[in-house]
């Protein structure tokens, strides 16, 4: 889920400063609707002094349209460096892999088999003769949620923030989780009984990479279209140039009856072709699109699910598969491979 940029709003920014600086250990007090008095020491004071010595200042949150010259020491305005410093101070390094358990619906019972079958058929229409091989077993579904700032370098530089989530069971994106994480309340009931999966950085990286690529596909399409237009213009320019050059050489060759001259012209044509190809390749390289994701948070999310051993037919072949039903999503996640029996 792409998080839309916040337009400059002094009130919202003041709240963020107050919360952020407090988190860093500073004392904050609103002295006016657009003023925040700060007494900082240690990590919070490092925003102003590298040594973290005690610092006292009254910050003023200016509206975006103010045309007067900015005072970067005490004024907070669009593009203000202190905002960058504060956001960077709040970032924890190295990134913690945090855990979070989604609360269980107190009324939730094992879902009805008919409903589960219908959901399965909707999800996997190429399978038939769906049957539970064994009663449903309660289990835990894990998903990875991440915050990623994405820098896309093309003709311009684009920055965007994305909250992405993917299931650790089948690796599929989990847009519901990324969208609704803020509505979930805390639960501590399951904490003791959860066997968290051992983190595998390589696998998590791949998972994030795939999910982000899907997330950015639309945006990249738009950028690619712009880049292609530019590349097309550049290539047309290069092609026109070499076309006329080649024509000129060819005409020159036809004028001469000397074999030597014709050979020379052919050599030049070959050199021009090589140069032409080089210029095209060069333009292509210059139009490359690069995506650099920067991760800001990693959250391993656990929630209750139902594990089932299913018997079914796929392409007229009977077999068994292990699957996990996630009530939040009302979806099945394949936990193993289909085994023919």
């Amino acid at each position, binding site marked *: 889920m792409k998080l839309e940029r916040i337009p400059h709003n002094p009130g919202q920014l003041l709240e963020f400063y107050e919360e952020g600086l407090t988190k860093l250990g500073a004392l904050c007090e609103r002295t006016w609707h657009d003023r925040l008095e700060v007494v900082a020491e240690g990590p919070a004071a490092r925003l102003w002094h590298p040594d973290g010595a005690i610092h006292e200042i009254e910050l003023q949150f200016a509206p975006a349209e103010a045309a007067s010259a900015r005072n970067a020491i005490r004024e907070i305005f669009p593009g203000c460096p202190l905002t960058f410093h504060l956001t960077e101070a709040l970032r924890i390094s190295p990134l913690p892999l945090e855990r979070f358990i989604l609360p269980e619906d107190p009324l939730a019972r094992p879902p009805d088999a008919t409903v589960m079958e219908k959901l399965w058929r909707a999800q996997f229409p190429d399978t038939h003769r769906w049957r539970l091989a064994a009663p449903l077993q309660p289990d835990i579904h894990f998903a990875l949620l991440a915050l990623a700032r994405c820098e896309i370098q093309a003709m311009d530089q684009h920055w965007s923030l994305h909250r992405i989530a993917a299931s650790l069971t089948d690796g599929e994106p989990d847009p519901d989780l990324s969208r609704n994480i803020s509505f979930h309340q805390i639960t501590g009931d399951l904490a003791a009984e959860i066997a968290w999966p051992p983190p595998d950085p390589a696998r998590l990286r791949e998972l994030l*990479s795939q999910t982000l690529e899907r997330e950015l596909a639309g945006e990249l399409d738009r950028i690619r279209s712009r880049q292609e237009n530019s590349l097309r213009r550049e290539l047309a320019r290069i092609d026109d140039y070499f076309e006329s050059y080649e024509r000129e050489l060819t*005409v020159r060759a036809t004028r001469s009856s000397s074999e030597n001259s014709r050979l020379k012209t052919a050599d030049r044509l070959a050199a021009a072709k090589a140069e032409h190809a080089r210029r095209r390749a060069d333009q292509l390289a210059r139009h490359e699109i690069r995506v650099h994701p920067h991760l800001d948070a990693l959250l391993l999310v656990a929630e209750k699910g139902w594990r089932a051993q299913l018997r079914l037919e796929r392409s007229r072949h009977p077999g068994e598969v292990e699957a996990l039903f996630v009530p939040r999503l009302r979806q099945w996640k394949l936990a193993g491979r289909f085994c023919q029996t």
Partner: protein
Amino acid sequence: MPTPKKSSKARPRPPRQSFLPGLVDSKNQFGGLLDLRVTFDEVKGFTELVWREQGSKKIVAVGRVRCTGADQLTWETEVDGRRESAFSSQRPDSIHAAFGVWLKQFPSDRSTFSAGWLRLQSGTDKLLRRDEPRFGADENICAWIETTIWEMAETLRFQFLPPPRRTDEIDYQPSPYIERYRRKMERQEQKRAEDEARRQKILDEIAEKRRKREQRQAEAQQIAQANKSPANKANSKLQLPKGQLSPLERAPLPPLPMRFEMPPLEFQETTFPLDDLCGFFLRERAALWWVSNQSDDLLCLPHCRIEQLEYQLRTALRVLGPLRGRALLSDEVGLGKTIEAGLVIKELLTRGMVHRFLVLTVPSLVDQWEEELADKFNLTTATTNHVGARNDPQKFWSENAGIVASLHTLKQAAQLEVARQIKWDILIVDEAHYLRNRESQAWQAVNALPRQFLLLLTATPVQNSIEELYNLVTLLQPGQLPSPKEFRARFLDPKRPRQPREPEDLRRLLGQVMIRNTRANAGLKLPPRRAETVLFEPDEAERGFWEKWEREFRDRLSNLNASQASLWGRLLLQTAGSSPAAWKLALEKFPDAGAARAWREQAPLETSWKRKCELIPPLTRIEGGAVIFTQFLETQAALADYLRGMRVETFVVNGSTPAPQRQPITEEFRKRGGALILTHSGTEGRNLQFSRNLINFDLPWNPMEIEQRIGRLHRLGQQHPVHIYNFVQAGTLQEHLLQILQEKLNLFELVVGETGLVLGERFSSDEFAEEVFHRWHASEGRVAEAMAGLGDELAAARDAYGEVKQLDETLFAKDYEAL
């Protein structure tokens, strides 16, 4: 066409002999001789020649000769609907040659030749045709036609001459002196042309040799390759028929490369699940504010007074973004590197990312930088031209947040010692090609300054060897290029130090630190400039006085010490070339009061002043009026009085004009036309591209100042060719100086900004004026010779700059643009 004027210079009409050389005996594509009818159309102003097949009315070809310039004839032909044009000068031999081409192409029969005139009947609008009597067998028809065309051109060419010439010619009888002078100028022009032709020939020979050598090498390589591969051998004989292109050229658009660079995942594990998501959401909001705080635009733009050009804004954004505040800005001359650097400084200041900035430049540009930063970016700076910098370096360097300093000053040990103690948030080095040698004092000095952001500005980063580029990039981003030894081994060909060995790799590495905009990609094209020297002649009494005064003045200066002599010499010689009022005022404080009084009393200066001023009113009546530059307030006042007396709308701006009033005065001039008289301080920040006539009423001895004057009119937004009229008194030092500036330096043809690059280190500051004075002082009256030596130096500098410019254009063509 008016009847050809029988001027005193007209060529006498030749006898009409019987001679048509090489015509009657030739066969041609039309199968024989043609009938020719020549009509001299006085109404439309051209000569028309119509060739028909013999004995029929069928037109084979039509030719027209038109006068299209002060010394240009256009020869147009139309055959079977196909039009062709050729040009010639208006000299008889050129006309003869051009006409000869036509006669060769369309051989004519003299027996059927006829000629006639088309003119208006006097007092009516009715056209009158008059046939020339038939030519006798002994008359030379070709010569007669050529002479008539020449006379027509002589009559019509005046419409292409600029007004001052006409005024000059009409108002004054040519004196013997002018005749002598004209002949002298012609000789000089001829000599210059010969020198230029010789030089060009040598250059062509060298280029030809080099081309042949390279071609031989390439051929040898290709033959070697062809011998290795039979397929290549077969291909080398392949010839594409016209219009057929290789499949590569029109290949479909290749898929765009895309890289997804996910960083390696490094994290620390946590033991317990979170109790709440407050911390997560706080970090999310922080990340969102981080992204939202990114500004895609420059925040400083509302506070800048600049024309917002796309390529300049992009350059600033790229420097601030991907290049992280360290860049080599190598735009072509005249594209505004100063503006781009100013934008970067202003943006960083606006965002509060810098507090102290230092601009280093050559001494001659210190004041200009100060003016540009103040005028366009509202940035107040202290400069090393102020007394404070010399008297108290400690205070100067530490107490000023913004400084414009000369590289020369910084190199001084006392100054450098203080400057290097300060941490500069952003350092700008203009004319950074002076840092090309890492052993140089300048490079060492700049390298010693602690800085966070660094911009190097130069249009010519490479002058002799690409190793210079290494030194510049190393200042910017140490480590961006490999070690010197590795760089030499990888990129430098010792035999061809100007050509990189692996251009692709070098281009890739440089692309990360360098931006170079070109006129082509910026879409900047200015109309041409035309410079005209307007000589005015003093009368005998004045000429006598000036000759005597120069002798006496030179003697008197010998009694003063060197600095006094230079000061007074330059002041009085320049005021003498400006106006009697300025000269007399300057004399009042001359140390030898007795001599000064005597000169003032003896001087009969009113004639030449009047003649000089009389040339101006016609120019002020042209659309857009005339912008007149002078160095002296007294001259400005006297000229303004004269013009007002002549009822010319006159506007005056100088250093004492309050800043808020300057723009309204300029605006009024733009609306009403007339004359706008400016002094140097009055020109600051004035954009006068709506006017197209510039008068240098006097000539500053600093070419950069002349260039700045031109730059006020010849800038972005100018729609018309700019005419520059340089007023100088014949036979004076100013005339010789103007001559070398025009002919040797090509001052009036250089792009604005190039003069400093041509003058380079040799005349870096006030030194050009100093040099002029010393040469005049030592010349013992032989001023022309003294100036010729200086001219040779300028010509050599110009040529050297031309080579460097060519090299940089080749090396960096279209690969580092911001757009």
